[in-house]
C-alpha cells in the first residue's frame, strides 16, 4: 500500500476530496451557464461568518457555516428577485459585507488564527471523522438532487422565461440551486478552503466548455477534471507539504491552460 494511505487523516481527506471533486462542478456548471460564477465565491465568503461563529461558540464550523450559507443563499435569491438591484450587485453586497462581519467577529474574539488559516486555504490534516458524517451524506444528497432535477435545472438555466411559461417554477429551482451551492461550499472548505472553493466550482466547468460537444458532456468532463485535480492535488500536497486547496486549484488551472491550448474551438 502506498505510504499516503497509511495515514487515517489522508484517507479521510481522500473521501472528502472525492465527494467535493464530484459535487463542486455539478453545481458549478449551472452557476457558470447562468453567469452566476461569483455565487460560489460569495457564498464562500459568507460561510466565513459561519466559521467564525462556530469557532466562537465551539460548534463544528462546518455545521454553522452551512446554516449561515444557506440563509445567505436564500437572502441573495430574494434580493436578486427584486428588480431594483442587479444580480451581481447583490453578490458584491454579500461578498464584502459578510467578510466585514466575519473579520469583526474574529477580531473581537481573537485566538483561533491557526484554525482559521486552515479554513481559509484548506488543509488535508484537518478533516475529522465528524466532518465526514456531514460531508458524505450531504454530498450524496446534493448529487442525487442534481441528478433527479437535472432536466428542470437545465431548462430553467437555459431559458427561464419559456420554462416558466410551461409551468416549471423558476423561483423554486433558483432557490434549490442556491441552497445546493451553499451546502457544497460548506462541504468543501475543509479541503479546498474558503478563498479557493470558487475556483474548484468554476474552473473545471470553464475547462470542460472548451472541450465538450454538449451540456451533458460539459458536466461529465468538468467532474472528471475536478476529481482528477483533487486527487492529484492531495497527492502533491502530501508529498511536497503544500497547502491542499491551492495545490488542487493549480492543477485545475493547468487543465484549463491545456484545454485552451489544444481545443479546436
Amino acid at each position, binding site marked *: 500500500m502506498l505510504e499516503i494511505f497509511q495515514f487515517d487523516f489522508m484517507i479521510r481527506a481522500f473521501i472528502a476530496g472525492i465527494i467535493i471533486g464530484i459535487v463542486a462542478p455539478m453545481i458549478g456548471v449551472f452557476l457558470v*451557464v447562468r453567469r452566476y460564477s461569483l455565487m460560489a465565491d460569495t457564498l464562500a465568503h459568507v460561510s466565513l461568518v459561519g466559521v467564525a461563529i462556530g469557532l466562537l461558540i465551539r460548534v463544528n464550523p462546518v455545521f454553522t457555516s452551512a446554516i449561515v450559507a444557506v440563509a445567505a443563499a436564500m437572502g441573495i435569491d430574494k434580493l436578486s428577485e427584486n428588480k431594483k438591484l442587479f444580480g451581481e450587485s447583490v453578490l458584491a453586497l454579500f461578498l464584502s459585507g459578510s467578510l466585514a462581519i466575519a473579520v469583526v467577529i474574529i477580531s473581537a474574539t481573537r485566538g483561533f488564527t491557526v484554525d482559521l488559516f486552515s479554513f481559509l486555504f484548506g488543509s488535508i490534516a484537518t478533516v475529522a471523522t465528524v466532518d465526514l458524517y456531514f460531508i458524505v451524506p450531504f454530498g450524496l444528497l446534493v448529487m442525487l438532487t442534481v441528478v*433527479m*432535477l437535472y*432536466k*428542470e435545472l*437545465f*431548462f430553467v438555466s*437555459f*431559458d427561464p*422565461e*419559456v*420554462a*416558466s*411559461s*410551461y*409551468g*416549471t417554477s423558476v423561483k423554486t429551482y433558483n432557490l434549490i440551486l442556491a441552497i445546493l451551492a451553499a451546502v457544497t461550499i460548506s462541504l468543501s472548505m475543509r479541503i479546498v478552503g474558503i478563498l479557493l472553493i470558487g475556483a474548484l466550482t468554476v474552473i473545471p466547468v470553464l475547462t*470542460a*466548455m472548451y472541450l*465538450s*460537444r*454538449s*451540456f*451533458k458532456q*460539459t458536466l461529465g468532463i468538468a467532474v472528471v477534471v475536478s476529481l482528477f485535480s483533487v486527487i492529484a492535488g492531495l497527492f502533491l500536497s502530501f508529498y511536497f507539504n503544500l497547502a491542499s486547496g491551492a495545490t488542487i486549484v493549480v492543477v485545475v488551472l493547468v487543465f484549463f491552460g491545456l484545454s485552451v491550448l489544444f481545443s479546436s474551438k
Partner: protein
Amino acid sequence: MNEAKNIIEINDLSYNYNHHLVLEGITFSVKSGEYLGVIGPNGGGKTTLVKIIVGLLKPTKGQVKILGQDVAHLKERYNVGYVSQRASQAIVTFPTTVEEIVRSGRTAKVGVFKRFTNHDQHFIDEAMNAADVYQFRKRLISSLSGGELQRVFIARALAGEPKILILDEPAVGIDIAAQDKFYSFLHELNGQGLTIFFVSHDIDIVAQEVHSVLCLNNRLICTGTPKDFIKQEYMEKLYGKKVRFFLHGHAHAHERESHHHEH
C-alpha cells in the same frame, strides 16, 4: 359538422404597468386550427398580450381562458407552445446541443423526478424532423444561423405536443430567404391542424401569411381577414399617422413614402 373549439378566450382584458394602460378592454377568441396574426406598433401591447396568454403576466382585469381553463389555474401549460422574442437573441455561448434544447421542451410534460423514456424520445425526434433540424441535432447551438436557431426553438415548442403555438416576433434576426422557408414551415404546421398565433410588427408578413388578424394598439382596433385590416382608417388608428399601401402582389405599409404622397 362540429364547430371548432375555442383554444383561447379573452374577455375584457386590461393590463396596467406603472399606472400606464398597456392593454384595455381586449376581447377575442381563437378557434382550434386557426392561423392568427397580431399586428400593431411598438409599444402597442403585443408582447404583453402574449405574456398574459402564456401565463407570465397576470392581467389587471378581465378573463383569459386557455383550452377552457382559466390561465392562472392551467395545469398542462406545455399545451401552449411558446417561442419568445428573446429566442432570437439566445445565449449562444451556452454549451448545449440542438437535441438537448428540443428535449427541454418536453420537461414539463414528463414531470418532476421522471426521466425521458423512449416514448418521449419518439416525440422529440418527431419535433426535430418536423422543424427540419434532426440532421444537426448533435451540433452546438453556437454553430447555428439565426434561421436554424429559430427552427430549433419551434421544435422545442413542438416536443411538448402543444395544442397551440404562440410566436412573438419569430422572424427577427433572420435573413429574407430563411424567412420565406420559415413561414412556409409555419403554414405546413397549420395545415397539419396546429393552431398558430403569431405576433409581428411586419404588416407585409401578416397580410401574406395568416387567415385572420388582430390589430392591436393598446386597444383592439380591428379583427378580421388580412384584406379587412388593410384599410386606411385602421392603419391610422394603429400607427397614428397616414400611411399608404403599395400593392406588389402583397401589401406594404410605407410610412416615409406616405408622408411624401399625402402632402
